[in-house]
């Protein structure tokens, strides 16, 4: 129970000079709050990147055509890649899970008296494999529907809620630009993509349907696609797959050795991860700067504890005269310093929670995530600062000679 009395003594002593105690704590408060906020920002950014990579569907490449290059000048016409390229990549490059052709357009979708402007994408079932995207309701395309270019559609969650609300969309007919399609499936919600666009605001048709009805068939490249999205199995060597795809496509396009690629392969997960790493480095740096302020706060604590010991020399003398051992005095001042730091740390945590909550509420920054172990660590660390910076003043107090302390003016 002695600890309760020591705590009471410490709080009484700190209450004597409330303003001074608060100002002293401020260093710790700011330090702890800053460290937690920085770490929370870092965790938030990391979480966002993880989500983006996950919604992208794991280890994904984008293969697009490049601008045609002639005599150093780029012409506007783009080298078209096509469905055959996708099939070939899937068949011939080891480690590839699926290669999905993709064609996009945009336009209005009308149901009854409701209409919604959305993205109209032409795909086949491989797209759902690559994107790691599950059906919430209904079914995928049949191969007959794909081959024939049937007027069937699978819609995203956002489009479903905009057009159908509570009613069941399966089997309903909607008008896409200028033709009717029947809805056969609804996809599970996927949320925002890396650029913050809603991925669920979409209608998927068989790729042939989009080509025939909306984008038109190119005479030179009848099976053209906008890009091919390729997914690799987990744990595969992404660089190797990229090289293999590149080799295959160069061969197929008959690009001579030393000639420029007429396609581009982008490892998207890697791009996002790289960006995340930059954010991480930045946040880590800021967290370190914040820790420095925590140490500066600790020095402030030490300073005030030294002043406090000097001010209360007579009290120390009296306590010794009535029987306090040096260790009793040591603990008294040490606990005072720990209480000061602990309280500062606690307030700092509260402020950090407030900040992160407000930030998330008003969508400032990448969003913060406060992890419990970071909070516990900060509290522990501020307590440790109390011990470290409080020890010397407390030791100094405990080493006073009783008579000198009693007679101190």
């Amino acid at each position, binding site marked *: 129970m002695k600890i309760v009395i020591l705590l009471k003594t410490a709080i009484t002593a700190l209450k004597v000079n409330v303003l001074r105690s608060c100002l002293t704590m401020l260093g710790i408060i700011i330090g702890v709050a800053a460290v937690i906020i920085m770490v929370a920002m870092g965790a938030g950014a990391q979480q966002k990147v993880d989500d983006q990579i996950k919604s992208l569907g794991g280890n994904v490449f984008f293969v697009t055509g490049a601008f045609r290059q002639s005599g150093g000048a780029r012409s506007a016409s783009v080298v078209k890649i096509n469905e055959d390229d996708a099939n070939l990549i899937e068949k011939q490059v080891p480690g590839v899970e699926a290669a999905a052709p993709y064609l996009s357009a945009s336009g209005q979708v009308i149901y009854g008296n409701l209409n919604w402007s959305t993205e109209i994408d032409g795909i086949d079932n491989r797209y759902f494999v690559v994107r790691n995207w599950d059906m919430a309701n209904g079914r995928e395309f049949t191969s007959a529907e794909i081959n024939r270019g049937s007027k069937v559609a699978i819609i995203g969650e956002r489009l479903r809620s905009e057009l159908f609300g509570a009613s069941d969309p399966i089997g309903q007919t909607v008008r896409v630009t200028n033709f009717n399609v029947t809805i056969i499936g609804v996809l599970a919600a996927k949320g925002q993509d890396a650029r913050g666009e809603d991925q669920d605001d979409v209608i998927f048709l068989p790729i042939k349907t989009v080509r025939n009805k909306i984008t038109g068939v190119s005479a030179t490249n009848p099976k053209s696609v906008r890009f091919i999205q390729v997914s690799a199995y987990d744990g595969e060597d992404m660089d190797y797959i990229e090289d293999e795809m590149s080799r295959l496509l160069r061969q197929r396009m008959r690009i001579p050795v030393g000639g420029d690629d007429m396609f581009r392969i982008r490892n998207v997960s890697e791009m996002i991860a790289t960006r995340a790493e930059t954010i991480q480095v930045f946040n880590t740096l800021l967290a370190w700067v914040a820790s420095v302020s925590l140490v500066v706060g600790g020095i402030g604590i030490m300073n005030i504890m030294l002043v406090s010991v000097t001010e209360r020399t007579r009290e120390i003398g009296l306590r010794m005269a*009535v029987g306090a051992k*040096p260790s*009793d005095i040591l603990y008294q001042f040490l606990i005072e310093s720990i209480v000061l730091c602990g309280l500062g740390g606690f307030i700092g945590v509260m402020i950090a929670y407030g900040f992160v909550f407000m930030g998330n509420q008003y969508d400032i920054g990448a969003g913060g995530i406060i992890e419990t172990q970071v909070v516990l660590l900060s509290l522990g660390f501020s307590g440790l600062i109390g011990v470290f910076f409080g020890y010397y003043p407390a030791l100094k107090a405990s080493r006073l000679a009783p008579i000198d302390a009693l007679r101190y003016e």
Partner: protein
Amino acid sequence: MSQPLLKVRQAKKVYAMGDEQVWALKGVDLDIHQGEFVAIMGSSGSGKSTMMNLLGCLDIASEGSIAFAGQELSSLSKNELASVRNQRIGFVFQQFNLLPRTSALDNVTLPLLYSKVPESDWHKRATQCLENVGLGSRMGHHPGQLSGGQQQRVAIARALINDPLMILADEPTGALDTQTGLEVMALFQALNQQGKTIILVTHEPDIAQFAKRKLTFRDGELISDEQNSNVRQAALEGKA
């Protein structure tokens, strides 16, 4: 004759003042027995304060020996000295030395914090001590809310809480007016009547007259040790 409570033999104390050595006590022999009321007198620099510090276990003699209740003090560690001060000696100071912004009750309880007395007894003991000095109705007051005489009585209650063998009072009336001084002295005389050994350090001959025995120091030496044939009775004077 029984063994003395305090047995001082050739006690010397030297302070270093820069390069110079100053002998504050130059070899004092002294016996004080249980139940005595002793006044230690002398002008400032006479060595009386040094003597009090040694008797109160606040300091250690440079040479010679001091035995307190049969125990040689020079052989004790800092912690053991603290424990002797806690258990066997009660201190009363000129400036009261109460903790500010702390109730009378908590001030009196302070020595128990450093004792082995179980916490459940603290309140009872402190209340008892405050009632004994006539402050039963002011236990919750802070020193700032008490008069000088009342503060000194709180300090005396604090000195009594561990039922010490001896009370050491350093100029206990120095900060008080004559009337309150008398009240405090009456309290000491009553305690002495109950068998407490009291050592009173003062430079006022008037105050020393309340003690049964007077020791006079000058230049670090005990120059006179006499029984007081004409003890003043504070309780009677206070009423007059």
